[in-house]
């Protein structure tokens, strides 16, 4: 865990970033989420939106309502205070069908690490992850908490399309993909849950700071669960702590 002083980085006249560090680290992510929560509580004039990432919080502002430099200094000061970590009361248990056509890279990942596919599934579904960042594409949830024994740098060339609901790993990160997209990550499985439904309230199932646990699910259950998800029924289980 690093405890360097946070840095204020300008992002033009409509945003700035408070950077806590440069790595993927549970301690950094907790500080980012703590600052995010503190800002939401304080409702500083001119703050429009905030974007937590693994290691930084970007604050979007309205330059008509706040001076970006002054607001940046105020938030930096707040970031330097010992903010209480905010453990999320929300834990999602997300069903995942691993391997086979659902996770075409499971065997290769297992072989790379000298593990059985079952051991990879066990290690991937063991932790309570934290949603450290949602980004790149709408609803793409990047998780903190991957077993370091599973970490694996990305594929040399991305696949042109990977399906919605793909559960994958890249480097030290784990991902829940909301919509179909190209990806260079290693595909371990797939969830029938829909994490991004524009017509639903809430539109996005997962929020930054949520905890996530993957529940290995037999392939025979896919059709039933997928049909339920298609009908708008929740497939992931929400456990409020």
């Amino acid at each position, binding site marked *: 865990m690093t405890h360097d002083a946070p840095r204020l980085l*300008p992002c033009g006249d*409509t945003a700035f970033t408070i950077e806590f560090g440069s790595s993927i680290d549970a301690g950094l992510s907790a500080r980012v989420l703590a600052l995010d929560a503190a800002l939401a509580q304080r409702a500083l004039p001119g703050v429009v*939106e905030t*974007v937590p990432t*693994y290691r*930084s919080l970007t604050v979007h502002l309205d*330059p*008509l309502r706040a001076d970006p430099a002054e607001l940046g200094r105020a938030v930096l000061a707040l970031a330097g205070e010992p903010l209480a970590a905010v453990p999320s009361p929300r834990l999602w248990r997300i069903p995942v069908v691993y391997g086979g056509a659902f996770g075409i890279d499971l065997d290769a990942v297992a072989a790379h690490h000298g593990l059985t596919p079952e051991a990879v599934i066990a290690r991937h579904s063991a932790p309570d992850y934290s949603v450290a960042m949602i980004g790149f594409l*709408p609803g793409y949830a*990047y998780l903190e908490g991957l077993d370091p024994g599973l970490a694996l740098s990305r594929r040399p060339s991305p696949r042109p399309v990977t399906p919605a609901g793909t559960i994958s790993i890249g480097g030290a990160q784990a991902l829940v993909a909301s919509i179909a997209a190209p990806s260079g990550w290693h595909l371990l499985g797939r969830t029938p849950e829909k994490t991004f439904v524009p017509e639903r309230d809430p539109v996005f199932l997962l929020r930054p700071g949520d905890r996530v646990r993957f529940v290995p699910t037999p392939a025979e259950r896919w059709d039933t669960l997928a049909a339920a998800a298609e009908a708008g029924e929740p497939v992931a289980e929400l456990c409020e702590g």
Partner: protein
Amino acid sequence: MSAHLHLARLTGAASLQDGGRRGYLRFGLSASGPMDPLAFAAANRLVGNPADAAALELGLAGASLRVEGGAARLALAGAPSGLRLDGEPLAAHRSFVLREGSELTVERPREGVFAYLAAAGGFPVCSVMGSRALHQRAALGGLDGRACREGDRLPLAAPASGEADQSLDPISLERDAPIRVVLGPQDDLFSQAGLATFLGEAFTVSNRADRMGYQLDGPEIAHGAGGFNIVSDATVAGSVQVPGSGRPIVLLADRQTTGGYPKIATVISADLRRIAQRRPGETLRFAAVDLATATRLAREAAARIAALGTRLRPVEGEAERLMAANLAGAAVDAFRDGD
């Protein structure tokens, strides 16, 4: 059946955009909205709309349009594009009524990229997550989550009323001066030579330019000793990210919200429209300004949009029509000669 605007012919890109979809950056969804907010607001104000009503954004596009089931008050603003009503030249930056049976043609712009066609009352397509703006990658907004195509029929809100036509001075694309940036957030990950290249050399807009971002060709921007991979952090509209190739990409309205390449600088918000209006093959330069200057320019840009309503002038009679169509230059000169 209510009135529709029929896109009888379309070449190039076209999508419905409004003020944008706010509040979802933390969920990975960029705001979309117009690439040239000033021209977009001008088109809307010309037809009596709020500045952020849904309008048709044309990107290097030509089109022929007809109204079905009524008449529409329309206006075009932005990249200068030849406009004809039943073959007769018509000025941009003024409103006019398109009647059933008439045809409006919009030529591909002579310069710049984006022109905006606004209709009185906006285009009442479904609002998705608080906005009608198309976000193509997410398939949200626009016409059923997609861009406009030839043959589409865009719903119109209200029949054109008897209000006077309005005009505005043409919106300048402000193409000559450098694109202004504030350095950072990761300018410290570039070498001195890399920074000097970025601020000293000219870059060319490549063919890989769309609403997500413009990739620029030109000299390679050298990273520092730390390399070009960072743990992903958030992007903003105007982020200038530099991947390993050293070729910068300026992220724009439909950008990815996070990225793992260092960002050498951020285009100031007032100049986003200026870079958006540069087309592939055109060169540009960057110049650094401080944050206070960028903030002042942002406020001036907002004031300019807010003042559009007070700058509207009624279009009266033939002389103004000709003047607005830039056909009256000779007549004005003749008048001066005789004075």
